């Protein structure tokens, strides 16, 4: 995984709540066996609508998605994260994320930045009134910034310490766990014999 420290890109206002992973990428797009090629399936049902935000310039070149509460609820499909990344998103901002989606984001290197609902409202207003405004995210200081002068927005975002550290360092989770091999072995040595086996 590539390390993540800061990112600045065009903000995309997705004025919707409860955007579940079936909305992010419908099941019919999940048939691929690779981690790429999912950009076409991103928000597939809405992409036919010319007024949908990603069908409008300059939002189509955006890399910071700003969504309402409960983004990424539902299915565990990591394809939702890959689809956002394949399209070009590096950051998703929301007041509340589905648990599995947030976990998947951290593993795959997409920053899921949790902010106050009021911040999302202000970002939506700003990004809609001034299309093309960039949003800057600093993972080290956990801050998010957008706009200038009287319209400027600056606030903090939440992300758990461990995920932040892994993202900043670009660490491979499996590698970290394998460094605790001895702990795993000693646990396995004391597991009950009546636990089931498939082979």
């Amino acid at each position, binding site marked *: 995984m590539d390390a993540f420290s800061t990112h600045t890109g065009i903000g995309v206002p997705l004025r919707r709540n*409860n955007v579940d992973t079936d909305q992010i990428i419908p099941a019919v797009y999940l048939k691929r066996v690779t981690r790429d090629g999912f950009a076409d399936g991103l928000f597939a049902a809405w992409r036919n609508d010319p007024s949908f935000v990603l069908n409008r310039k300059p939002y189509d070149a955006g890399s910071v998605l700003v969504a309402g509460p409960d983004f990424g609820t539902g299915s565990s499909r990591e394809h939702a994260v890959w689809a956002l990344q394949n399209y070009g998103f590096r950051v998703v901002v929301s007041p509340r994320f589905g648990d599995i989606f947030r976990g998947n984001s951290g593993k795959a290197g997409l920053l899921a930045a949790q902010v106050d609902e009021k911040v999302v409202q202000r970002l939506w207003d700003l990004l809609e009134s001034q299309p093309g405004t960039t949003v800057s995210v600093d993972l080290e200081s956990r801050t998010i910034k957008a706009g200038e002068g009287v319209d400027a927005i600056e606030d903090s975002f939440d992300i758990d*310490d461990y995920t932040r550290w892994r993202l900043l360092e670009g660490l491979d989770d499996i590698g970290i766990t394998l460094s605790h091999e001895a702990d795993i072995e000693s646990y396995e040595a004391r597991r009950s014999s009546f636990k089931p086996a498939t*082979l």
Partner: protein
Amino acid sequence: MLGQGSKTGKNERKGALMGKTLAEKVWDEHVVRSADGEPDLLYIDLHLIHEVTSPQAFDGLRLAGRGVRRPELTLATEDHNVPTLDWDKPIADPVSRTQVETLRRNAEEFGIRLHSLGDIDQGIVHIIGPQLGLTQPGLTIVCGDSHTSTHGAFGALAFGIGTSEVEHVLATQTLPQARPKTMAVTVNGVLPDGVTAKDLVLTLIAHTGTGGGQGYVVEYRGPAIEALSMEARMTVCNMSIEWGAKAGLIAPDQTTFDYLEGRKEAPKGEEWEAAVAYWKTLVTDDDAEFDEEIVLDASTMTPFVTWGTNPGQGVPLGASVPAPGDFEDATDQIAAQKALEYMGLDAGTPMRAIKVDTVFVGSCTNGRIEDLRTAASIIKGRRVAADTRLLVVPGSARVRLQAEDEGLDVIFKEAGAEWRGAGCSMCLGMNPDQLAPGERSASTSNRNFEGRQGKGGRTHLVSVPVATATAIRGTLSSPADLDTDGES
């Protein structure tokens, strides 16, 4: 033999003498390593995999030159993307075929047991685990599927994971996990006749909202839960994720032990005795404290159906479609407005007046043998309404065979229903079983998200009795409505 509490555990915060909840007992028993400022490293007893969320995980292993640490704690099946018609022939869609064949190659290469299409133990991953007796109390169970919570019905700690985590478990048989908060949902009273576990859980989700359980492992308890069969308990735990919970579980009891005893993969002889003795310790201690509690009364519950596009947007079948103005919160009002537009519904329409095109009986929520027996008992001697289609999809090959042994397939076919092969089918609309744009369904599955059952499809989540009565009358109905029809 219970492990030590983790450093961030509530027990230590509130004093070492306090009892533990069921979830905490199972958690602590599986902590491989715990350190300040890090998530606990949990050992995983059973890892279930399927064709859709595993290919990239196996690719990752190959790329890093890693193997599967414990193939004997891993089980694979084909369910999400398999056809339910002509399932004994090569899969027609080449992309789907590639995905299924990729799983077969990976299982072969890494030495993992796989139940393929045509195998007697093939079926929806959350149906075959319990059916084989692999799902047992006190285990940690994960799967790249959010409805893994189903297995919590046995007192296991079971939750859905993403593909990167699938790779992590394959490589290490462990998973780093932050300790969740605990919640109790106590359901008192007795469910009235004709009101099912599905109605119970839909009522709960309407009460809490889809985010109400977020961050919690939930224990369902109380007389109404204890009275449920194992299959009904699975229906309740299955939908934990629909109100945001990380997992849902129920303490194992005699009902659990009776269900497991004699199953193919359940412990035998002395091991059985040892296992049951341990399982009996898997209850929440009297002096344990939950971080949150909800209390519901089963006796006031009625058949419950959804009108909107998330599982929390539901009302009693006897009620009407709500208006956005009925909601206090501005966010809920907007969500209701959007849902009504998508669902093509007018506020104030009685739910019973809603005409349905397709009825789907199946999925890991309601695709087990008891569900099919219930549906068959209602439809026997009746017919599916003229403009309605009824799709009955058993959750596993064994459920299908058992239903055929009992003659249920004949009852369904005589009533004009379609009898299919086992799989996820129209629950997620990945295979050809999909709704057409604008088509309306009553579905025994767990999600009514926009487009879930096919692009533009409109889904009402219902119980098995409501689904069956709806198929017969063509409008959202309960079996009680059929009796009235008979009299008139």
